[in-house]
């Protein structure tokens, strides 16, 4: 029984998306934990990067590092995923920001 070989990847796929923190309280502890809980459901490595004057790359699976981002409302961030489920990880994680983590 041979499987049809549709896609052959020479490297792990990567995906990324730029988002803006839109909830008024910013990325405080509760949303940070919500993000980490979801990120941990994926095999991909997840990084959240902040540019600007105080650039910081947070491990998206570490609550402490996500809180260190101190991303206030209006802060642009980049979500990056690296692994075989990178596309769906970025899509679902970006949706948390789109939905303002259930806040205002």
């Amino acid at each position, binding site marked *: 029984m041979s499987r049809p070989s549709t896609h052959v990847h020479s490297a792990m796929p990567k995906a990324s998306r730029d988002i803006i923190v839109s909830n008024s309280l910013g*990325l405080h502890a509760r949303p940070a934990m919500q993000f980490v809980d979801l990120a941990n459901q994926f095999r991909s490595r997840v990084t959240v990067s902040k540019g600007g004057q105080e650039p910081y790359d947070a491990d998206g699976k570490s609550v*402490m*590092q996500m809180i260190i981002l101190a991303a206030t409302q209006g802060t642009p961030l980049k979500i990056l995923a690296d692994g075989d489920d990178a596309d769906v990880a970025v899509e679902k994680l970006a949706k948390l920001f789109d939905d303002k983590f259930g806040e205002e």
Partner: protein
Amino acid sequence: MKLKDFIISEAIVPELKATDRDGALRELAEALAASGALPKDSVDEIVAALIKREQNGSTGFGKGVAVPHVKHAKVKRMSGTIGRSSSGIDFAALDHQPVFTIFLLLSPDNQPQQHLQAMNIVFSNLQKDIFRRFLRQSTAREAIVDLLDEADQRP
């Protein structure tokens, strides 16, 4: 922002008497009230809010530290304190380990940016193994204050 901008030295508790989470939250809130950073008649309300926050999700983020915090209208100026426990306290931490160091942070309810900056400086330091280790070993208030000063002087 620096740690000493909001950590009230006089309210630091180098050895907590409390052995459980709710008792530790009360002891630290009372220490802040005794230092004048919090109205004494709002302690009950603040402790209830802190406990509710913990029930929604533990602030025991692992590595033996917890950062209970709340934004509350009764808090006029952001203030925080530190409590140490030699025996360790069950905070239902993410890594299921006991908590030896507690950073309590109280913020006004209308300054989310200031709150995030304070959390940033607290966690930037707590990320460092050496800071956590020294904090856990500091059995006197003066030693903890010195440690905070040193941390604030680092860029």
